[in-house]
């Protein structure tokens, strides 16, 4: 590990990424679908002479511009910051392989941002035909950003045999297109495109809800009904695309899903299944509410309901993304790098030579630490925790070790860690957790540290002398 460990109490590094990414996706996918929505809606309004639609579309394009250009772009940069800090090894792998991919994406991105602004500011100022063309350029360039980023995101789940055969050799960039058009590329592109259209329809309802339905009932009803139609392709085709996607994911991911389905009754190992079910439930609810509350009751359809639909879409997006992330477990880059940044090829080396010994930043901390041997051991264990567990776990908070290890003594913690370290074929943890790497001393130190999390504070003097425990109060 060539980078310092990023410790995020309560949330974990992964939690920070999840929050920013879900927020970003909700807007970014809207940016792709919403551009097409505006262009197609404007075309329809002009062709059919529906001049009353135009002020509404202008208003929507303003909302669209602010949302995507301000909130979408900043949160996109936020993802870069978050992934760089939370998972620097994986980020580095992506940059080494896809730097030109991102360069291409940025070209489309600049065209997208420019045309979005030009589109809004030239309403009523230039020829309708030209204005419409700008709308279409926007729609195309925003779609192309998806075409690019989709290659990089799907690569992480299924890098493909060709790339894996050269991984680590320094020649990875020579198989750029193989990595880009990887096995899940097309199903994912179709899925995301359909979701973009869904979100275009849902976000359009936010603008439509602001039309006074008692004064302009017909206009409001027409815009709501037309926007609702944007949800139809998605709801018909998403299940099919999802099955296609599932057919392309690696066997280990399918097993994880099977495990979840077979144990849902007990509620164990089911996070991915629960996430998928939440996606299904929230999507069905969106459909029902759009029909019964928005279309059938368009006159009194208010902003509160529109925002509720956006929040439901947020839940659906978050659950889908979580399921997708979970399917990738135990890897961050399929079959190459584990979710904590340890490369599959490095496991043997770290086990023989030590994990922390290969982490220059951790070494500095270990050397500079003053205290008795016992405290130093706990400190060393804490560094192991931050390096190998912190990507997904926290002490108290998200996937908290305090909760997961509650009531366990030193021996029982040692047993779990041994299971994780041995990483036998039949271990259930193997399906979603990386192996624990390190030499026996480091693992013993991790046991000591984890034990401090499970001991009630009054039982050990050691705990009071350890500064890192000061925040744990119950």
């Amino acid at each position: 590990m060539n980078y310092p460990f990023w410790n995020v109490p309560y949330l974990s590094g992964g939690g920070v990424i999840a929050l920013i990414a879900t927020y970003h996706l909700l807007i970014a996918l809207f940016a792709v679908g919403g551009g097409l929505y505006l262009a197609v809606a404007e075309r329809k309004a002009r062709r059919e002479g529906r001049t009353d639609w135009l002020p509404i579309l202008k208003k929507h394009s303003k909302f669209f511009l602010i949302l995507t250009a301000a909130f979408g772009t900043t949160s996109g940069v936020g993802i870069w910051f978050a992934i760089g800090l939370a998972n620097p090894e994986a980020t580095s792998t992506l940059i080494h392989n896809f730097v030109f991919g991102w360069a291409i994406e940025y070209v489309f991105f600049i065209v997208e941002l420019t045309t979005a602004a030009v589109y809004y500011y030239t309403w009523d100022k230039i020829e309708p035909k030209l204005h419409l063309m700008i709308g279409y350029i926007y729609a195309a360039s925003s779609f192309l950003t998806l075409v690019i980023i989709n290659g990089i995101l799907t690569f992480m789940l299924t890098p493909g045999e060709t790339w894996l055969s050269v991984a680590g050799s320094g020649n990875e960039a020579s198989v750029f297109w193989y990595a880009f058009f990887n096995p899940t590329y097309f199903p994912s592109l179709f899925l995301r495109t359909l979701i973009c259209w869904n979100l275009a329809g849902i976000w359009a309802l936010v603008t439509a809800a602001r039309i006074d339905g008692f004064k302009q009932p017909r206009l409001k009803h027409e815009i709501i009904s037309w926007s609702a139609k944007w949800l139809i392709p998605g709801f018909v085709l998403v299940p099919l695309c999802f099955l296609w996607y599932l057919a392309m994911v690696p066997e280990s991911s399918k097993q994880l899903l099977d495990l979840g389905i077979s144990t849902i009754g007990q509620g164990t190992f089911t996070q991915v299944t629960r996430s998928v079910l939440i996606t299904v439930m929230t999507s069905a609810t969106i459909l029902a509410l759009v029909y019964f509350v928005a279309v059938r009751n368009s006159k009194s359809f208010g902003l509160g309901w529109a925002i509720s639909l956006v929040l439901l879409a947020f839940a659906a997006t978050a659950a889908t993304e979580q399921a997708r992330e979970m399917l990738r477990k135990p890897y961050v880059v399929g079959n190459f790098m584990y979710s904590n940044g340890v490369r599959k090829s490095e496991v043997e080396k770290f086990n023989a030579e030590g994990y922390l010994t290969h982490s220059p930043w951790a070494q500095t901390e270990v050397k500079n630490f003053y205290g008795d041997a016992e405290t130093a051991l706990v400190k060393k264990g804490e560094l192991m925790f931050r390096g190998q567990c912190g990507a997904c776990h926290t002490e108290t908070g998200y996937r908290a070790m305090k909760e997961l290890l509650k009531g366990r003594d030193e021996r029982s913690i040692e047993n779990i860690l041994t299971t994780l370290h041995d990483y036998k074929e039949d271990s259930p943890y193997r399906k979603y957790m990386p192996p624990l790497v390190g030499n026996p001393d480091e693992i013993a130190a991790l046991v000591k540290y984890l034990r401090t999390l499970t001991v009630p504070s009054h039982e050990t003097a050691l705990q009071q002398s350890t500064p890192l425990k000061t925040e744990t109060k119950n």
Partner: protein
Amino acid sequence: MDASLSPKPEAKKTRIYHWLDERLGIEGMLVHAKEKTVPSHKHQFWYYWGGISLFFFVVQVLSGILLLVYYRPGAEAYESVRQITYDIQFGWLIRSAHSWSANLMVFAVFVHMFSVFFMKAYRRPREFGWWSGLGLLGLTMVFGFSGYLLPMDDLAYFATKVGLEIPASIPLVGTIVTDIVRGGEEITAVTTQRFFALHVVILPLLYLPFLAFHVWLVQKHGNALPPSEEEKPAAERRTIRFFPDFLAKDFGMWLLMLNVLAILASMYPWQLGPQADALASAPQGIHPEWYFMSQFQILKVFGRWFPGATGEFLGIALFTIGLILWSIIPFIDAESKNGKRAKLVNYIGLAALCGLIAVTIWGYWEL
């Protein structure tokens, strides 16, 4: 229509309809439902909260019945909840849904009460709606309190122990009443049996008639207009049909709440702690459920400021006066015109709301 004619499918439907209508009066109900309107204005969001509370109550009943199948009060209480949580298929989900919807229901009832308060929906002729609502709130809280103990894990045990300090501090009768409810001076297996009886028999028997009365009153008087709408001339007020428009939205809101509940219950399943051990030391920072936190904190603080029985007495006196004042609000602010009194009552409401939130936060801060 002549019933002897060979019926087409449509006519058949009509015959069934007539048969039912003759016996149940569907026609009249439909006509009434179609004539009934609900005001449509910018504060209408608050109209949903009564329905939301009712929805969570329905979830409580259904999930409660399922838990009832496996729960065993008494010495086996903890073991049976452990089985529900870990052994029985989907037991974890049902229990989690029951606990989450209980909390959501209390929250919804509070929101409903304050929204009714600020919309001044307690004014003539809706006073009984206000009082029956307060009764339902009280019963809801006792429901929550009695249900919390039933798993008999350490948190439930100690939270109930400290929670019972609130009724025990009532002068004269407090200790006796608390001992009766507890079935002795300590919380034991007997207590779970008493709380169980309270939770699944006594409280529902009290609750259902109150609820029926409350809902009947809402139906009788319709939705109240907030003062800002009342000021408008009648021609400017907007309404939507109750059936099917508002009803569709109301059910839409139920569906939305079902989503909220399902997400919470499945992604954050309710945990079960270790079995309660009366001899063990209480876990650090033990406290009752959040909706009792303000009372708990006030008693704690008064006990600190005025040692001995004085503190308890003053605390209880404060609750009593507050509750009486809250109940007679319809008399204090009876007129439909919005004069000085109406404003004063608004300030009282704001003070109560802010006070409740502030003291609750203070309570958690001090843990």
